[in-house]
């Protein structure tokens, strides 16, 4: 609930929140992978 409020996705519809969260998880996992691969 606080996460939705702080990122502002509280205002978005359910499908938009789903898209946003998927992108965010994708980006974070790729970042961790790349950080692991590079480091």
């Amino acid at each position, binding site marked *: 609930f606080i996460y939705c409020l702080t990122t502002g996705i509280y205002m978005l519809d359910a499908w938009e929140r789903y898209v946003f969260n998927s992108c965010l998880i994708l*980006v974070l996992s790729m*970042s961790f992978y790349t*950080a692991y691969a590079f480091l």
Partner: protein
Amino acid sequence: WNSPGIWVTYALLTAFMHLVLLSMPWFTTSVAWTLTNVVHGVGMYLFLHTIKGTPFETSDQGKYRYSTHWEQMDSGTQFTAARKFFMTTPIVLYILASFYSKYEFTHFVINTIILLLSLLPKLPQLHGVR
């Protein structure tokens, strides 16, 4: 556009975008930097130089209805701090992108085109020019 908050946000979003591109394993560093420069240049061009009017009704009898964001900044006064800041960032990005792409010719051309796309509309001589 004058508030330090939006400058910090703008820098954070640009850096975050670069990290996203950098974390895609199939992009090399130079492609990631050039893409950052391209996405940033095109995005800022669309937002600053194509969108016209204001997101809400103003009581200025439509004075700013046909002005772009950049022309409305500081009510058209040139060489303000905000304008200097938003002119400097594309140049910094261009220098970084050229450096990290090791001045490879193709990247250099792309980055230079994007730099011109970012700087030309911001010149005082082109204020209000269509």
